[in-house]
């Protein structure tokens, strides 16, 4: 594939954007005085910022490339991730989970599980999510290095005293680190708003130009219905190796998607920073609007590329999106679309870094190492953790090259533990009888099932989610039923039917939080 040369006005647009975003984010440093300001934006976020920030977090540059490549290979079925694999779960999250998280006054989802069950589950969840986030950051940083090399000509590595130094990755880390370390969630959420708007403007422009080249929507459908009729089908047969329909429905829509939207700290953290419970719920709910439109800027370009050039083969199929940029965009517009790429990347990386730092500061450092310290102390630790995660990600990024498909690799790793996590969270909120022994057994049993399937059976990764969820659910139900229930006092404020909004309960919960989850 030829290199896409960005120069002149395009280059100026990209550079200006890469300088403006950290400067804008850095502005919010002035509002950060306490750890709550840093991790939860001082609980001041309105619903519309939460919605856009959730989408900024959810959609990364790898999604652009991965989803467009997936659409090029498999067709419309790729859009399930944004529709049935998201929207019902968004509504469930808004109306079923977030009110409980909000009322509990927590900072993290593992913190909630720690209060509901015990500290072991909290630590296990923190370590699992932390590891996944590092993995994800590695993917994102590696993608950033490749993008900067491909489009701006920034060399991927330069040799300094025999040591390869990853210039593009370090440049990305500096841009993100500047405002993420200083401004915390407020800076991340506010920059996300700008980035999502840029993502949509750039992405829609590319799709419109693509459709224009094909003679409109009808031209696209007519072309594909002749050359690739299967690509126009939403569901593929049950024996499809990647997107079997039972896997999409049971694995993605019923388990992986609710697990992602209801239990993922990077997603949930924005709602915990809401100024009211209604804003928390509405913030999640209204993210369904941009989410429904995401296939227009990710899946549609893949189909357009297929209609225009069906000759991409092998790994080049994953480059359908860059091929489209190179082929369709005139000077000036290429810079804007590339800025959209950068926006998608940065808005995901900053959120993951911020959430990973929140998890490790709150659920490991504050819960186990220094339990009683000032707010400013935890603020400082949060900033150090943020810097630490960025540095770790820089070193992890080159390892990502061992994985053939960035998008699939990330999803497969997540599939191993999100099913059982969703099972114990769901039962934790809605079944009073679920207890710690049951949840620990369900979590480890479910992960064991997923790992077994992963290594022993060659099946779509959607099935790991489904069977590990079913296994985790059954184990938790059975073991809980066979062992002693939790005391009502422990469950107050955390479980369906025991949520109260009176000040006594809230102050008790706050006291529990200050003591690291132990009363």
């Amino acid at each position, binding site marked *: 594939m030829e290199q896409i040369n960005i120069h002149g006005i395009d280059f100026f647009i990209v550079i200006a954007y890469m300088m403006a975003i950290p400067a804008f984010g850095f502005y919010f440093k002035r509002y950060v005085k306490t750890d709550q300001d840093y991790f939860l934006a001082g609980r001041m976020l309105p619903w519309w910022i939460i919605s856009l920030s959730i989408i900024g977090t959810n959609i990364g540059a790898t999604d652009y490339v991965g989803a467009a490549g997936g659409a090029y290979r498999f067709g419309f079925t790729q859009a399930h991730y944004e529709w*049935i694999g998201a929207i019902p779960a968004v509504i469930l999250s808004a109306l079923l989970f977030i009110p409980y998280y909000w009322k509990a006054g927590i900072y993290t989802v593992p913190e909630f599980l720690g209060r509901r069950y015990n500290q072991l589950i909290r630590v296990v969840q923190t370590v699992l999510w932390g590891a996944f986030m590092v993995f994800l950051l590695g993917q994102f940083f590696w993608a950033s290095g490749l993008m900067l090399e491909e489009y701006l000509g920034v060399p991927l590595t330069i040799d300094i005293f025999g040591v390869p130094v990853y210039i593009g990755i370090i440049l990305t880390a500096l841009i993100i680190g500047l405002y993420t370390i200083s401004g915390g969630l407020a800076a991340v959420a506010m920059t996300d708003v700008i980035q999502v708007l840029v993502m949509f403007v750039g992405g829609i422009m590319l799709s419109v130009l693509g459709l224009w080249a094909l003679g409109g929507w009808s031209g696209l459908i007519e072309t594909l219905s002749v050359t690739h009729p299967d690509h126009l089908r939403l569901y593929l047969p049950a024996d499809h190796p990647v997107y079997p329909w039972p896997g999409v429905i049971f694995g993605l829509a019923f388990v992986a998607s609710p697990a992602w939207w209801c239990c993922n700290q990077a997603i949930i953290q924005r709602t915990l920073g809401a100024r009211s419970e*209604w804003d928390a*719920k509405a913030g999640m709910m209204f993210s369904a*609007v941009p989410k429904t439109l995401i296939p227009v800027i990710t899946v549609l370009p893949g189909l357009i590329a297929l209609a225009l050039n069906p000759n991409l083969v092998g790994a080049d199929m994953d480059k359908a999106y860059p091929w489209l940029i190179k082929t369709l965009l005139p000077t000036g517009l290429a810079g804007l679309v590339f800025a959209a790429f950068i926006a998608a990347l940065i808005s995901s990386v900053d959120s993951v870094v911020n959430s990973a730092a929140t998890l490790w500061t709150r659920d490991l450092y504050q819960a186990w190492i220094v339990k009683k310290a000032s707010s400013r102390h935890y603020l400082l630790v949060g900033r150090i953790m943020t810097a630490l995660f960025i540095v770790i990600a820089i070193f992890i990024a080159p390892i990502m090259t061992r994985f053939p498909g960035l998008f699939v690799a990330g999803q497969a790793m997540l599939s191993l533990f999100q099913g059982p996590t969703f099972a114990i969270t769901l039962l934790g909120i809605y079944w009073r009888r679920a207890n710690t022994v049951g949840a620990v057994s369900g979590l480890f049993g479910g992960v064991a099932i997923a790992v077994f399937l992963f290594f022993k059976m060659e099946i779509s990764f959607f099935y790991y989610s489904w069977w590990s969820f079913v296994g985790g659910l059954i184990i938790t139900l059975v073991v809980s039923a066979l062992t002693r229930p939790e005391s009502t006092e422990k469950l107050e404020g955390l479980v369906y039917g025991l949520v109260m909004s009176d000040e006594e309960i809230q102050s008790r919960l706050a006291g529990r939080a200050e003591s690291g989850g132990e009363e």
Partner: protein
Amino acid sequence: MMNWTTDVYLAVAKWISLATFVGVAIWAVFRPKAFIFEDAPTTRRWRDLRIWSVLFMIVQIAIYLSL
């Protein structure tokens, strides 16, 4: 493990999807009003998240019926 599903008509997948959307919409409609508006500064209709839930599900139904 899921081999039996190869004998199921592909159209069933779409029907399960539509049933899911309808089910979520119905579930959302029956959320108590006090719960929906908790903490809301006003109870104006646009803040009623039940209406939005139904609307979003209708959009999904339309998409899945048309593709």
